């Protein structure tokens, strides 16, 4: 059933259908700022302008109270006009989705109308932020609407699928309900379709407002606000081989928002969690973070995490959002599934995305950066604005122990069992002198500076602030 908790836990609303577009739009926008873009109609879509935290926005909402929100030519035209208006007026556009898709009675005309909506979204891509909030089933054409936007937020009653459970069962025999097929678990953890899983419709609006503010009110770097000197290295375990969760480190580097919890708005938190992507503020300025998470898969890069990162990098580049790249990566994840799954093709997307990005992008190596993953994580040659490292960091083809086992395989094999450990230890020390740490990397200029972890906020903010502000001239293809 589509009706959610609201009607059972809020008795005062039982006689008012909260799914009415007027109410949903009013719940999203600043009070008293809603102005419809068109006269009331039977189109199944309401479009309006208004404000979010004072920022001018355009919003549209499907009418879930009428034939499940299905839309035809008129409704789609309202959406197209809303999007085109947003582009003209240079403001974000937010779509509230609860729609069964095309109105069957309108046949091909409805299909054509949906296609026009997609075309409008693609015209707008990268020009103005487009945010989708999925509040109920968004099926068929209504699934591809959110898919073409920059950020997709899903409320608990939200469902997204191209073909629903009935058709799935009749064609493939698979038995699954709407929630299983296209709800929070499906799209929050398996598919990556949804960026933010909200825990209520109200929360979905809060998150949409937050993302809108981050994208539309990016602010300026205030370097006086980054002078704090917490020792961030203390957040990492003492043992260099022990994995840790990168998220507390990210939150310590970014500004803490005293007004709301969750100052770091993470995207796709439970999908490809071995890399963390999301928006926050650094010295007051909206900044995108891309960070390996050692706690997940050792922080390895793989097909999905590379793709996730690449799309996020391109989104930030489209909107002129500078990037902070935090690196602690042992390499790419080996395996047949990875290779056959196209880690080569999908990893290449990340190389391309970073290299193409013209926004300021600063890399900080926390502990290690090895091999191909070193290259992919915004290295110097891909055009990083600056590359910093904490004192114990290692940048290399691989770790010293692994390198020695390959380079000196014969020597070690020839040694006796008693001698071998000491010999190996000596070879490792020698190898580290030649190739270890960041000394070599610094001598060839691929690491700019080793920094005191306590100065991290200041150093990275200054480097981002000093770089020429750029903004990519491409759209945000859903990579």
């Amino acid at each position, binding site marked *: 059933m589509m009706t959610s*908790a609201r009607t059972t836990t809020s008795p005062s609303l039982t006689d008012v259908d909260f799914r009415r577009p007027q109410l949903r739009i009013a719940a999203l926008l600043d009070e008293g700022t809603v102005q419809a873009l068109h006269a009331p109609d039977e189109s199944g879509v309401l479009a309006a302008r208004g404000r979010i935290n004072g920022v001018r926005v355009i919003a549209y909402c499907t009418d879930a109270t009428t034939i499940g929100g299905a839309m035809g030519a008129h409704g789609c035209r309202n959406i197209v006009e809303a999007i085109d208006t947003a582009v003209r007026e240079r403001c974000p556009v937010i779509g509230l989705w609860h729609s069964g898709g095309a109105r069957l009675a309108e046949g091909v005309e409805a299909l054509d109308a949906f296609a026009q909506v997609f075309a409008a979204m693609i015209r707008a891509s990268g020009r103005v932020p487009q945010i989708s909030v999925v509040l109920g089933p968004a099926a068929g054409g209504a699934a591809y609407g959110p898919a073409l936007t920059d950020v997709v937020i899903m409320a608990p009653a939200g469902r997204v699928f191209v073909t629903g459970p009935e058709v799935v069962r009749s064609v493939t025999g698979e038995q699954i309900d709407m929630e299983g097929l296209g709800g*929070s678990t499906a799209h929050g953890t398996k598919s990556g379709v949804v960026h933010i899983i909200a*825990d209520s419709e109200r929360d979905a609006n809060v998150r949409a407002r937050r993302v809108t503010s981050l994208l539309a009110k990016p602010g300026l770097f205030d370097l006086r606000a980054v002078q704090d000197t917490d020792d961030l290295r203390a957040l990492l375990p003492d043992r260099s081989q022990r994995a840790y969760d990168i998220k507390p480190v990210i939150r310590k580097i970014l500004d803490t928002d005293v007004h709301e919890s969750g100052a770091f708005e993470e995207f796709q938190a439970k999908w490809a969690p071995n890399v963390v992507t999301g928006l926050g503020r650094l010295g007051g300025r909206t900044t995108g973070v891309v960070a390996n998470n050692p706690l997940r898969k050792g*922080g390895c890069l793989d097909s999905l995490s590379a793709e996730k990162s690449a799309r996020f990098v391109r989104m930030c580049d489209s909107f002129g959002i500078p990037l902070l790249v935090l690196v602690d990566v042992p390499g790419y994840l080996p395996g047949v599934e990875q290779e056959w799954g196209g880690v080569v093709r999908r990893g290449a997307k990340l190389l391309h995305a970073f290299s193409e990005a013209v926004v300021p992008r600063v890399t900080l190596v926390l502990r290690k950066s090895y091999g191909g993953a070193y290259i992919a994580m915004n290295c110097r040659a891909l055009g990083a604005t600056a590359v910093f490292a904490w004192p114990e960091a290692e940048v290399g083809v691989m770790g010293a122990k692994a390198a020695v086992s390959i380079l000196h395989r014969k020597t070690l094999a020839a040694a006796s069992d008693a001698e071998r450990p000491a010999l190996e230890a000596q070879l490792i020390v020698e190898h580290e002198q030649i190739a270890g740490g960041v000394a070599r990397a610094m001598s060839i200029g691929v690491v700019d500076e080793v920094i005191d972890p306590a100065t991290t906020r200041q150093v990275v903010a200054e480097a981002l602030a000093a770089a020429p502000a750029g903004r990519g001239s491409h759209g945000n293809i859903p990579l």
Partner: protein
Amino acid sequence: MLAGSENAELEARVAEEIRADIVAQVWQIAATEGQVVAEGEPIVILESMKMEIPVVADVPGTLVSLAVSEGDVVQEGDLLAVLE
């Protein structure tokens, strides 16, 4: 899987399967069956990619059962423990 705040109580009693996210060797068992674990507390420590990777509880709960012992090799997706 259940969602929504009105189902939170029910959700707390639903078993959560903790699975390996990478091929690894079980290096250390960090919690005992019956132990109450906090969110973020390690249950098992895996060894892979030359690192010790703690596998932690995503939500607080009771460790109902362990599916592995020290030294076991696990594939991606293998069950490590069940939390409730």
